[in-house]
């Protein structure tokens, strides 16, 4: 590799940010003393650094970009060049990676950045007013896709870079409060506890949300006092093969949206002869309207750690990665604390629970890219490449993270494994539950846990549906709309499929009749246009053409919209058929369902 780094130098602050992550450079070959033109030392000349050993650290590129962005607020040419020298990454590639993520800036910007959510749930609850207020007050802000705070919409996230970066969440947001938080983020009040997002908190019959609100999310002892780590003990008693059998028999399927049988995925990973095996927890919860994983991670973080350990044990992995979306600062803090505590107590590390099994977990932060929730894009992101999906086959169970067999599971899927083990497969299957993220025009928005088989009507009864409901969006931007007269749709994967819609990640966004449907559809189209990675043509250009057509017919109906609707159908069909990944394949779902089920533009 013939690397060329240019002449840009980092500032002391940028250098310190990178060195804090990577340690100081060891020789002139990786930007140490002498590399600035003063000459390599005798020792440097006898001992070249580079090759595979240096390039194997490529996966630290994204953490390195975060380190600089957290410290300075943006990534300068000098900082990028220094990071590239340290990791032996070609600068053009690092630039391609840095420009992929919306939370990074390659141009100077103020140290304080305000992300005002303008996505579906927030748009339905007055995000426009917040943005207008901020503009009037002269506060600079970025319009952000869903921040996962839908139960408290409209939401804003303030990030201030510095030696110890400060974040503040303002939700529900008013322009004045956001402006105040932007001025002094450290003084913003504490966020409400995670249990406030769970209207059912403390009720009997909860399985996955049982501990949310009941335990201190910081305390490992409290977690154990509430039944924590019994599942892992049971797993060790059973052995990996029996754990997989138990999970298979429980009938558990993936909760990220694809509903693939978890036991089969684990079995396929565990049986691969190639090694090492990896476990990945997909906590890149970016589907607009989804916030269940955030609530679980904030309310019961040790459960995620324990469940990952069980999963790692079952699939024969000794290393787990938790890929957390960058917009979840509180979940990050709680999970980091949980990992530290678990390590200190021998629940992670070389000898978990004295059973001779080594397992540890590393958290990797996303940086603002919906597509990284796609598992192969997530692998690329961890590995330090652009978060572009790979084509399948080969599937992750065969060639996943770092090209090795990988089991990738969503947070909710993993925490389901705990009751599978503590209760047994049969008892679990008899009372299997699902989390739903209810937001929009309801009186009690939040995460709800209901047994499979409950209907949409049951759920909205709990959440307090509006008197004059226009539609419900199931499954988020990639999902579909249903009508107010379809309340008897059973909330199961099969039931929603039979009704011609999807459960997806469990989003239930309720819209009352004041909502301007064309505005919502346009927002969905903008979202997909923004979040398309750009790799394949149907999605890269198709999402643009979809948005253009929806903009043209925003105020039109009937015959005036017919041509554009025909165009939308043709483009939508090609996106669904020919895109590489689920983003492009589902980018037309919601619009199609609004036209066909709700009679939009009719």
């Amino acid at each position, binding site marked *: *590799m*013939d*690397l*060329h780094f*240019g002449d840009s130098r980092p500032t002391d602050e940028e250098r310190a940010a990178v060195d804090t992550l990577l340690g100081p450079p060891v020789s002139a070959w990786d930007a140490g003393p002498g590399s600035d033109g003063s000459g390599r030392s005798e020792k440097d000349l006898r001992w070249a650094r580079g090759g595979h050993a240096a390039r194997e650290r490529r996966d630290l590129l994204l953490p390195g970009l975060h380190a600089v962005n957290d410290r300075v607020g943006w990534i300068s*040419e000098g900082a*990028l*060049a220094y990071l590239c020298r340290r990791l032996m990454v*070609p*600068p*053009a*590639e*690092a*630039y*391609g990676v840095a*420009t*992929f993520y*919306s939370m990074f800036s*390659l141009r100077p910007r103020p140290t304080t950045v305000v992300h005002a959510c303008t996505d579906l749930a927030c748009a339905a609850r007055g995000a426009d007013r917040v943005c207008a207020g901020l503009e009037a007050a002269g506060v600079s802000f970025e319009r952000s896709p869903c921040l996962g705070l839908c139960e408290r919409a409209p939401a804003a996230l303030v990030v201030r870079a510095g030696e110890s970066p400060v974040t503040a969440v303002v939700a529900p947001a008013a322009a004045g409060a956001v402006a105040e938080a932007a001025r002094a983020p450290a003084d913003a009040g504490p966020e409400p506890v995670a249990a406030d997002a769970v209207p059912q908190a403390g009720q009997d019959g909860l399985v996955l949300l049982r501990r949310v609100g009941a335990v201190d999310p910081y305390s490992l002892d409290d977690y154990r006092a509430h039944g924590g780590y019994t599942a892992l003990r049971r797993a060790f008693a059973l052995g990996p093969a029996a754990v997989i059998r138990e999970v298979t028999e429980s009938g558990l399927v993936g909760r990220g949206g694809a509903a693939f049988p978890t036991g089969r995925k684990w079995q396929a990973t565990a049986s691969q002869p190639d090694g090492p095996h990896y476990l990945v927890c997909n906590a890149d919860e970016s589907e607009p309207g989804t916030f269940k994983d955030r609530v679980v991670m904030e309310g019961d973080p040790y459960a995620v750690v324990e469940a990952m350990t069980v999963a790692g044990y079952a699939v024969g992995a000794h290393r787990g990665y938790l890929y957390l979306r960058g917009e979840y600062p509180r979940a990050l803090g709680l999970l980091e604390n949980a990992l530290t505590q678990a390590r200190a107590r021998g629940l992670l590390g070389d000898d978990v629970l004295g059973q001779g099994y080594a397992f540890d977990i590393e958290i990797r932060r996303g940086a603002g*890219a919906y597509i990284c929730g796609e598992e192969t894009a997530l692998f690329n992101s961890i590995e330090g490449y*652009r978060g572009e999906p790979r*084509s399948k086959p080969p599937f992750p169970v065969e060639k996943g993270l770092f090209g090795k067999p990988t089991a990738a599971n969503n947070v909710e899927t993993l925490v389901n494994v705990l009751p599978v083990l503590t209760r047994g497969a049969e008892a679990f299957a008899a009372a299997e539950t699902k989390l739903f993220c209810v937001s929009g025009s309801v009186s009690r928005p939040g995460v709800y846990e209901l047994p499979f088989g409950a209907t949409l009507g049951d759920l909205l009864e709990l959440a307090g549906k509006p008197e004059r409901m226009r539609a419900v969006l199931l499954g988020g931007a990639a999902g579909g709309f249903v009508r107010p007269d379809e309340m008897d749709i059973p909330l199961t994967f099969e039931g929603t499929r039979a009704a011609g819609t999807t459960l997806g990640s469990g989003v239930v966004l309720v819209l009352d009749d004041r909502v301007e449907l064309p505005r919502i559809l346009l927002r969905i189209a903008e979202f997909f*246009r*923004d*979040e*398309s*990675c*750009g*790799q*394949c*043509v*149907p999605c*890269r*250009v*198709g*999402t*643009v*053409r979809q948005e*253009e057509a929806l903009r*043209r017919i925003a105020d039109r109906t009937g015959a005036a919209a017919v041509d554009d609707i025909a*165009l939308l159908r*043709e*483009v939508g*069909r*090609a996106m*669904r*058929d*020919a*895109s*590489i990944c689920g983003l492009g*394949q589902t980018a037309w779902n919601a619009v199609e369902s609004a036209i066909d089920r709700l009679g939009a533009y009719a």
Partner: protein
Amino acid sequence: MTAVPLGLPRRLVEFTLDGETVRAPEGSTILDACRAEGKDVPTLCQGDTLTPKNACRVCVVEVEGARTLAPACSRRAEPGMSVRTDSERTRHSRKVVLELLASSVDMSTTPGVAGWIEEYGAEPGRFGPDAARVEEDPKVDNELYVRDYGKCILCYKCVDACGEQWQNTFAIAVAGRGFDARISTEHAAPLTDSACVYCGNCIEVCPTGALSFKSEFDMRAAGTWDESAQTETTTVCAYCGVGCNVTLHVQDNDIVKVTSPHDNPVTHGNLCIKGRFGFAHVQNRD
């Protein structure tokens, strides 16, 4: 005498292609099998010297039982699979993909595309005059070649040729995201400030003419570029002892472009700066 490596004999995979049973060597792609059967499948991001990125999606085919269409260039033939290359579904996706491409970039110098647009009945104009296009001025920052990203379909071939598949120089990568994604050096710096070594192997693989010799670019601008008036002469590069084949494209007794045969076992179509661009002395008539 040239030694031709034959490799180990491969087993044959039997599957159904458009209703007919065909056999293809194990490991072949559906595209390989289609071409062996004489079926024309359009391709843009696939190249004979590179592993395809399967990003353009113009070669999609219908595999029975699959939820979505599959890229023929990358999907391997499997025993018993049933593939349709000419179904209504395939034709629809190909048509729309061609429309999306031709409405967003300048495809006037893409060989073959005009024929496919006609064959599939694509109407790139139907997205209206306000449809977003990639508006980029050609980047002329050196004497050797020009990057005209208004013609780029983001097939990733130049990035792969510059990077790990051939040259290992890594001067360019894809930057940005979605419709704003572009092939770029770091911070969009001029090539002269980048790691580029001017091997021109990116030009060799570019399917649209977004990358071209400066000589070709200037002649096109002047309206004098005429491929029908060009001769191609393959000879051996005289610079060093490697023995690369070079094909000299000559118009009006001037070398206007240099390529290398893709099936040449020495170059696989690649050259270095000397073989690719070091021809000026041949034309020094003083």
